[in-house]
């Protein structure tokens, strides 16, 4: 494939292809496209250290959310509880393999890969270097982006608890609180475009 020469100091709106000159944003400013209203650039509220701390915290609650049971229900003294993986394996065994795969991918593999990639990239970026596999991982992060659904799962668990409450004694377990926290971290991350790492971390001299 032929390579095209890059052009500096220009910014193109992703939603409508309007070309802008790059301008430094002041604190609290958001650059919006005057044609279509899309956000062109947000100020970076978090430095690399703060981002690394965020992703570490997100990974910890993710592990907790996955090893602890999410919800327990009781009926006549019998108690049942489940974890996220319990849910996935039961859907697989109950003739809903497609649902098991969707659940495993959107609630486990993609969010986990995404967080590990971010952690790996930041670990090296903080040392002013590009991580091994930088290019492939930046691409993977772009393609995985839309497929994390942990926040939907939290709402789903809430709905399931209310539905079960009509017939059973329902107790939310530690896992669901970890997931609720994870949702907050994911929301914070959704507002951060890590593509700036392309610019801010120099290519390694080989």
């Amino acid at each position, binding site marked *: 494939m032929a390579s095209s020469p890059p052009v500096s100091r220009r910014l193109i709106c992703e939603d409508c292809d309007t070309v802008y000159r790059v301008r430094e944003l002041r604190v609290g400013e958001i650059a919006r496209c005057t044609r279509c209203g899309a956000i062109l650039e947000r100020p970076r509220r978090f430095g690399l250290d703060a981002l690394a701390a965020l992703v570490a915290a997100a990974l910890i609650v993710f592990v907790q959310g996955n090893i602890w049971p999410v919800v327990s229900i009781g009926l006549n003294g019998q108690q049942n509880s489940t974890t996220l993986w319990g849910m996935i394996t039961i859907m697989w065994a109950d003739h809903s393999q497609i649902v098991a795969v969707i659940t495993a991918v959107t609630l486990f593999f993609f969010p986990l890969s995404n967080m590990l990639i971010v952690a790996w990239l930041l670990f090296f970026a903080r040392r002013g270097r590009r991580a091994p596999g930088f290019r492939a991982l930046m691409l993977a992060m772009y393609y995985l982006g839309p497929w994390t659904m942990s926040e939907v799962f939290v709402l789903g668990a*809430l709905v399931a608890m209310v539905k079960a409450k009509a017939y059973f004694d329902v107790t939310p377990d530690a896992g669901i609180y970890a997931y609720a926290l994870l949702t907050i971290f994911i929301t914070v991350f959704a507002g951060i475009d890590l593509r700036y790492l392309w610019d801010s971390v120099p290519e390694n001299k080989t």
Partner: protein
Amino acid sequence: MTRLPRAADLGLIACHVCSLVCRDTGLQDAACPRCGSALQRRKPASFSRTWALLIAAFIVYIPANLLPIMRTVSLGDVDDNTILSGVLELWDKDSEGLAIIVFSASIVVPMLKFLALVTLLICAQRGTSWAQPQRARLYRLIELIGHWSMLDVFVVALLTALVRFNVLSSVEPLPGVVFFGLTVILTMFASLSFDPRLTWDTKETHA
């Protein structure tokens, strides 16, 4: 208002993946020098891909709504629920707020996605400049809310895993939930394959 230049006017092209701005060499197989992705002025075959995925999504959406998604068995008493009957049940059990949330996620959001994408596709294919800012906003809205439709799929999965009291009470997933999950996945692929830049590719050059 001065006319805002677009990438094609200036002979520029932005990488869809890493957003690097490059000079458009006019070559068909140009690659982004930074991330290596293919440089494309527009997403490839955006209209036909989006239509195909949207039609496929609509086909699976029919059994997703007609077939039951979940079976509740308690002491031999069998009760099958569809998406809509699940919402009605929540409403009857005095959880109106939650009923509205589930109704929005499972019924309003998929319908909105179908209608919005059809509108965006038809308008862009006709090259009309009608309501362009609103169409741009509509696209961003469906990108933002699209995945919330997966709500009911997770509810069924969680209830199936929880309600396992042998003959006393149990919940099983039914085929409707599989079709519903597929609908959500297909509509997400459809909106990802739509190129929002097409909304602004009008036939007449506006002043």
